């Protein structure tokens, strides 16, 4: 624990803030600048920072690669699922207006779910890429 004490301490303070900021960018995306892509990358950056300072093994216990792969696939399926749902409700593919009672609510709900799917996939794919590269040579 003696090594990089300052860095580790600063990171411990910052990681929750980064995660919080990622969630803000994610869910504020339909009112201001932001969205799934950016939020996913910020979210992944927190874990990458953690892995850099506390070692890959610790990071892998929090985010096992098998889980990340599943989440990445589920994110895409969530995106596609919203499209299929709007198709089943009588609209075109990804037509959010039919998702709720009135079109405005539908658009809100649709974009929220879509961006959630994007965010999940981007975050987990970023972490998978990082873990795969760094884990290559033990």
């Amino acid at each position, binding site marked *: 624990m003696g090594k990089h004490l300052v860095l580790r301490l600063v990171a411990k303070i910052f990681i929750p803030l980064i995660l919080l900021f990622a969630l803000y960018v994610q869910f504020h995306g339909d009112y201001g600048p932001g969205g799934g892509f950016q939020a996913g990358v910020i979210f992944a950056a927190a874990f990458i920072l953690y892995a850099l300072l506390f070692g890959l093994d610790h990071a892998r216990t929090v985010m096992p690669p098998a889980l990340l792969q599943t989440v990445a*696939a589920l994110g*895409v*399926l969530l995106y596609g699922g919203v*499209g299929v749902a709007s*198709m089943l409700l009588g*609209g*075109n*593919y*990804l*037509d959010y207006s039919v998702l709720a009672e009135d079109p405005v609510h539908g658009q809100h709900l649709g974009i929220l779910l879509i961006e959630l799917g994007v965010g999940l996939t981007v975050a987990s794919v970023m972490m998978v890429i990082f873990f795969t590269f760094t884990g290559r040579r033990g």
Partner: protein
Amino acid sequence: MIRQHLPALQVILPLLAAPTCLLLRRAGLAWLFATVVGFATFAIAILLLRQVLSQGDIAYAMGGWSAPWGIQYYVDPVSALVLLIVSGISAVVLPYAARSVAQEIPSERRCVFYTLFLLCLAGMLGIAITGDAFNLFVFLEISSLSSYALISMGQDRRALTSSYQYLIMGTIGATFILIGVGLLYVMTGTLNMQDLAQRLPAVATTRTIHTAFAFLVVGLSLKLALFPLHLWLPNAYTFAPSVVTTFLAATATKVALYALLRFVFTIFGAEYAFNTMPLGPTLLLLALLGLFVASAVAIFQENIKRILAYSSVAQIGYMILGISFATVTGVSAGILHLFNHALMKGALFMAVGAIFLRTGSMQLQHLAGIGRRMPWTMAAVVIGGLSLIGVPLTVGFISKWYLIQAALERGWWPVAVLVLIGSLLALVYVWRILEAAYFDAPAKPDAHIKEAPLSLLIPTWALVLANIYFGIDTSLTVGVARQAAGLLLGVQP
């Protein structure tokens, strides 16, 4: 209700099936699922083609946003034919994949393999169906990125370097396309293909549009491996797993060719491309050069997959040749060969994959006497080879027939003669394969090489029979190709 959503389902089915494959975690299940999806997309493509032929073009507004603002999927005879061949090849290749993949790819990567395969399929179908220029770039990159990864799964370490080479050249090509689309957007403020076609004439004389045209043509030529931009192709096809080679050889370059047709004819228009810009002579020259150089190089190869890869470059020359005429007969010959070549190269690479499964080698010298040990597989190679040469009663003959007819129509008889000489070169390299298989004495007579298993033979012969069927009954292919060519050139057939 389903009927009205067919254009969306065509792409979304494989696109969503891909991550599902990753979740299945068991190779057998992933294969079964992917195969079912492959057949379903094929069925959708057939329905779409029938609908287009009976009721005219289909437009589908993604997300309910109508045409010039939203992304539109647009199905006309050209795209319906490409959708049919791409999904058809996938429906034939996937049943074949089970055995071949089990041998060539380690078990922990098989789920990922099917995921990538479906992504690649979704990307290609997307290119064929989209009516939006930028969306086309995105789908092109989806299919390209997954095909780089698929190629790198080959057993030989050279698969890695050839995949890397393809990645570099493919990305340069894709970025060129991106630049071209960007410049079009600057000048017109739209990305919808039909909207672009309407607004372009007003600004067609500007230097920006000339530049955009050049970037798009060069970028797409890289993707479709037009000579001399074909350098990535022979290595990639030689070292990729057999299934991947079959699938890519039959579809990837065809889809890029379709994108070229779309940009040149639908967006820029034949008048601009062939009269204002010197596209005709350029393509004619490169097509003929490619045809001869690649065929000549193919003759001197020792690896059977590499022979067929170089032959692919030569065959792309035939397609481009047809297009360079810019007449209805010429363009329909190009589209016809696009369809037919997918059938012949699909059958040939599948048969070669079956030989590899049993012998473990691709070198001609190791194939000595294989004709007696694997009679059905080699018979498939014989028919595929005859089709490649252009012997009557095969699809190859039909393509060449219309190509020569188109050349004579323009009064360019030397070109027609050159096409015939090109066929003779094909005869030479096909003969080298057959000579090794049937007339050379096997090096080790006691080697226990059996006929390929049925799971490989049936898909291979399905394509072989398609080669013969579409070589005899040409009403569907020629009819659609003519209609498509008339549509692209803006004349009623």
